Each structure stands twice: as C-alpha cells, then as structure tokens.
C-alpha cells in the first residue's frame, strides 16, 4: 500500500510538472507578442518595455522557465496585472468557493442519482426504468450554460424563491450546485443501474433471497454495497470534472470562484492570473483523481496486487 502511494504520488507530481510546462510554453510560444496583445494597438514602446520587464519577458526563455517552475514550488505565481496583487493570494481567496460549489454539486448529484438508479435497477425493463433512464439521458444532454439560465428564470425570476446570482445570500449556492450537479447525477444514475443489474444476477443474491432475508437487507446491504465500488470511482473521477465544469456554472451565476476569475482574467488579458488559475485547477483535478485511485485500491485489494 505504501509503495502504491509513492508510485501514485510520483505520477501526480510528474503530470503536474507536465501541465505546468505545457501552460508555460502555451503562453510563451504561441505566435504573437503577449505584451502587444495585453496592451492593445495604441500602447507606447516605453509602456511595452516596462511591462515586458515587469513580467520578466526580456530574460532568455530558459531563465524564465526556471523562475516559473521554482516559483511554483514557493507558491509564487507572479503578480496580477489588473489587481496588482500576488496571483497566489487571489487564488487562495477564490479557490475555496469553487471547492464548496463542486462539493455541494456532488452531494446534490448523489441525492438524485442513488434513488433514481436504484429504482431503475429494481424495476428493470418496466416503466420506472424507462422513465428514470430517459430523465438521465436528458440530464446528460442538457448543457449547464442553458440549464442555469432556465433555473434562474423559473426559480428566481418567476417564483422568486432563490437569489439570481452571487454568493452573499444564504441559499445562493442552491441553483449553481443543481446546475453543476445535474449532468453528474445523470451519469451516476446510469452507472449505478448498470452496476446493480450486474450484481443482482450473482449467486449470493439468490442465496440471500433463498434464506428468506427481507428484501430491504438483500438490496440495501448485499446488492447496494457491492454495486457501489465502481460508482465510487466514477464519483471521485467526476469530482475533478466538476472543477472544470464549474468554470461555466460560475460565469452563469456570477459565483466568485476560480472559474469566474479565470474567464474575467482572460477578458482582461491578465495572463499571470490565467496561467495560475489553469495550473491550480489542473493540479487539483490530478490530485483528486490520484486520491480516488488510492481509495479504490484501499477498497479493493485486487487492484493493489494487479499493479
């Protein structure tokens, strides 16, 4: 288990380094001068030189790369051009909001997915199955940047139950979390149904039924617990995906998280912040995936042995 952990840690570090390098070269090797793009067509040469020196762009690219990579390990991601504040401070302010949103979305998705998937699997082939699977197909196909405005229209503007946007009011998180969680709920429900259907054909389920256990125990204990394993994996992997999906949801609801900061910084051409946001979201994503694998290996010893 410990060897497994270190191998995983190594691979997380390796991928993080690759992502950092990729982001660095993406910004530096793309044709065109970032300074000219940042300042626009009417900037004076003095301003351009000043900005270039401020960003360290006058140094050779290998030196820049070295500063950048060593900076990451010292949690120094540069200065924001717009806020005149360290990027790491900005990110530290916004990141908890994104995590909170993703976490609430995960909970809402599980609350929807488990009853739906269970209902579909126990009534497989009958109308509850068809109904819940159709609902989940719609859930997968509905883009969150459309679902969000629709929820705002219905629950905030027409019914006036929930706030339109922002994060100040007590129930501000509800609509963003539902928006972000819907697609995940749909995927989870389908996974759970498939996984349960596989388990329900196992011999030990028949044995449990034959010895007269109440169906509450047969399904709740024997079937559900065994069907959960692949679902837990998907849950973990999807938490990472939620962080990416949160970008759009945050923009829809004006949620002060990392995604909104990223998009606003793109519009302001605040490249150090863009770089920092992408790096932090990616590393969070990779770390969560790594942790999921670790939990999975802990739950299922066969994986540890196989690798």
């Amino acid at each position, binding site marked *: 288990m410990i060897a497994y952990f270190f191998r995983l840690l190594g691979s997380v570090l390796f*991928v993080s380094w*690759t*992502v950092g390098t*990729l*982001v660095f070269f*993406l*910004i530096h090797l*793309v044709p065109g001068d970032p300074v000219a*793009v940042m300042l626009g067509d009417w900037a004076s040469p003095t301003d351009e030189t000043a900005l270039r020196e401020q960003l360290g762009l006058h140094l050779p690219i290998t030196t820049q790369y070295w500063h950048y990579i060593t900076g990451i390990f010292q949690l120094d991601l540069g200065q924001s051009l717009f806020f005149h504040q360290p990027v790491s401070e900005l990110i530290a302010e916004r990141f908890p909001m994104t995590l909170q949103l993703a976490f609430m979305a995960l909970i809402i998705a599980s609350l929807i997915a488990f009853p739906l998937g269970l209902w579909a699997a126990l009534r*497989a*082939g009958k109308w509850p199955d068809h109904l819940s699977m159709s609902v989940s*197909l*719609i859930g*997968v*196909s*509905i*883009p969150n*940047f*459309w679902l969000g*405005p*629709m929820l*705002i*229209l219905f629950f905030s*503007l027409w019914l006036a139950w929930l706030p339109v946007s922002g994060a100040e009011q007590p129930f501000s998180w509800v609509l963003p979390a539902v928006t972000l969680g819907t697609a995940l709920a749909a995927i989870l429900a389908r996974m759970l149904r498939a996984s349960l*259907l*596989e388990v329900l054909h196992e011999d030990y389920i028949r044995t449990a039924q034959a010895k007269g256990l109440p169906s509450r125990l047969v399904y709740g204990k024997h079937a559900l617990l065994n069907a959960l394993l692949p679902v837990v994996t998907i849950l973990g992997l999807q938490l*990472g*995906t939620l*962080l*990416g*999906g949160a*970008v*759009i949801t945050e*923009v*829809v609801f004006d949620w002060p998280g990392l995604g909104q900061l*990223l*998009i606003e910084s*793109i*519009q302001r051409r605040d490249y150090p912040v*863009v770089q920092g946001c*992408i790096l932090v*979201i*990616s590393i969070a*994503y*990779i770390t969560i*995936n790594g942790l999921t694998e670790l939990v999975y290996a802990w739950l299922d010893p066969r994986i540890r042995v196989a690798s």
Partner: protein
Amino acid sequence: MLKYLSYSIVVVWLLMAFAGFFIGDHANEVVLSQFLSPPSEQAFLSTAILGTDELGRPVLERLILGAQTSLFVALGVVFFSAIIGTTIGVYSGYVGGLTDKIITKVIDVFLAFPGLLLAIALAAILGPGIENVVFALVVVGWVGYARLARAQTLSLRNREHILAARSLGVSTPLMLYRHVLPLILAPLGVEATFGIAGAVISEAGLSFLGLGVQPPDASWGSMIKEGTRYLLMAPHLVLAPGIALMLVVLAVNLIGDQWRDHLDVRSKKSRP
C-alpha cells in the same frame, strides 16, 4: 419511434445548416423598431415566427446560422481529431516497444488534464474565432480516438491475417490501412458519433464564455449568452437556441447509443 425521431432531428439540423447559405447578411440586419418582439403566430410564414432579438434580428435566422456554426465545428473537430488520433493510436499499438510507451505516456498526460479547461486555455491564448475553436477542440479531442484505436489494434496485431500479411512483406503503412483499420472502424464510428455531440456542446460552451464565435456571427452558445440579459422580458431568446442545442445533442447521443448497442453483443445480452 425514438430512432426515427432522433434521425429526423439530425436531418432538420443538416437542413438548417444548409439553409444558412441562402440567408446571407439578412440575419445580421439590425431593425431596432422590432427589438425583442415575442414569438407570434401573426408572423407565421415569416422568419420572425420565433420573435426577434435585442437588435431586432429574427431569432429563426440566427438559429439557422447557429446551426451552420455548430455543424461546421462538429464536423471539423471530429474529422481532424479522428484522423490524427486514429493514425497515432493504430501506429502506436501496432509498432509497440518504446514508441508505444512514449505515446501511451503522452495520452495519459492529456487524459489527466481536464479537457474543457485545456480548450478554454487554448481558445483564450489563440484568440476568439471559429478556426481557433476547432483547433482547440482537436487538441483536446484526438486523445479519445488514439486510446481506442490503440487498444483495438493491440487486440488485432497477432491475428492470423496480420501475421500472414507480415510474412508476405507488406509495409507498415499499407498493413495498417488495409488490414487493421477496416476491422476497427465500427467502434471508432461510435466514438465519432459521441464526439459530434461533445463538439456541439463544447463549441456552444466556448462561445457562451465569449471565447468562440464573435458577433455578428451567430452561435447557439453566444445567443444564449446574449439572451440571458433579457431573460425576464424575452425568454424566447434563451429558449430557442437552448432547445435546439439540447435536441441536437440528445438526438446524436441516442444515435450513438443505438450504434453501440447494435455493435456490442454483450450489452444486447445483458439488456433485460
């Protein structure tokens, strides 16, 4: 029933995209006296049947131009990523050895990166525009095809007909094209179908974020974005492109599901 419905939705999508060629600049014409007028049956048989937007442009015409954008991006993305990904995957799986190890590592790194975020980053750095959207989505999209093609090729490489061809001295490119590719086209086709749905959503998403198609060009994503500002006064501005987007994605996903079930014997059996 569902099958015909999904195919008809796709056909309507294609027809709309085709109709876009005949609309031309009329869809961008600003008629301020008509602004935000709701859908009405009085406008039946005219393009204002779905109402007009904040600049008085008919929503139906914008929708048609948006269909063109989404179809163009979807076809472009799937075409390029499928060709690039399949070539890399088939080659890697067939040749094996160090090449395969390196390519697998590259695929792993791409898979470890949140796709949408990479597309956002690329679109942001390259600047907005439809070609850049296609490019960004291809950079993200090729990996899926590469992984699938590699896995499929690995399962084929020791088949008798491949060994026979190899012993006859067939060159690697010809071998892959003639003897490997035809056998793995079906699963790749299914992947490509889902890829179309993914590209349609991603294009609309990037345009929604302001990183895709720029005004006055129309995209369903940017129509939703612009419409959210008039949500209470003119919900049709968000409803029309959203429903179009959802129907197309749903239909393409359903078609993909059908093809997968059709090809996959296992899922047929386990289906109750």
